[in-house]
């Protein structure tokens, strides 16, 4: 599992790569929290999943945790380019209602 981010004006994009499960969720959360704290003025956060080959419900819990934090600071969240298999888990969870797919 690898993660990096890019910043353009008030838009921050996280790029998730590999397999996100229980083993990696905590590390991904800590990384995102550190980046979000450092960039507290962003208004749009995108989770790019084009290179994420696997995710289970642990990932949903982690994403909802970031959503709750970002909502408080007035930022919107989006999911970008999930694979068919990751998309199936996202769809079932209903997360697109709060984090639309772009």
């Amino acid at each position, binding site marked *: 599992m690898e993660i990096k981010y890019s910043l353009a004006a008030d838009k921050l994009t996280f790029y998730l790569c590999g*397999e996100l*499960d*229980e*083993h990696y*969720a905590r590390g991904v*959360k800590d990384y995102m929290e550190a980046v979000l704290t450092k960039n507290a003025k962003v208004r749009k956060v995108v989770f790019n999943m084009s290179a994420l080959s*696997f995710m*289970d*419900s*642990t990932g*949903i*819990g*982690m994403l*909802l*945790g970031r959503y709750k934090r970002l909502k408080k600071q007035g930022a919107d969240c989006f999911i970008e380019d999930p694979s*068919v*298999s990751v998309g*199936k*888990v996202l769809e*079932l*969870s209903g997360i697109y209602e709060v984090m639309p797919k772009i």
Partner: protein
Amino acid sequence: MNKMTLKVSARSENEAFVRTVVSAFMLQLNPSLEELSDVKTTVSEAVTNAIVHAYPDREGDILIECEIGERYIKIVISDSGVGIPCVELALQPFYTTKEDDERSGLGFTIMRSFMDEFEVVSSSGAGTRLIMTKKIA
């Protein structure tokens, strides 16, 4: 009929290993990509549950038993941990005992939705056994 049994410590670093082994075993059935990823996700959910909930105070094992036959895979995942006091409640979507831990409460919902047959056998102190079958077209 062909069988495979795997026993691992309930540690999160074994999750990827277990789902990879089960999906490799299943390849003999020539599944579609969707069938393969449904099983992979289901196995990951079941193993995660055992890792997160089964053994709060001690080290423990997870047993994974697979059987493949004419166009199906049967997967039984069991632990000898604390068990689930109320299975009916645990099966409710979004129900979690660990909300502070950022748990979605969707594990069982995903397993039920991705498999054709799904049964939970558990009670307090008696461990948990998940019995699941998926038809492979």
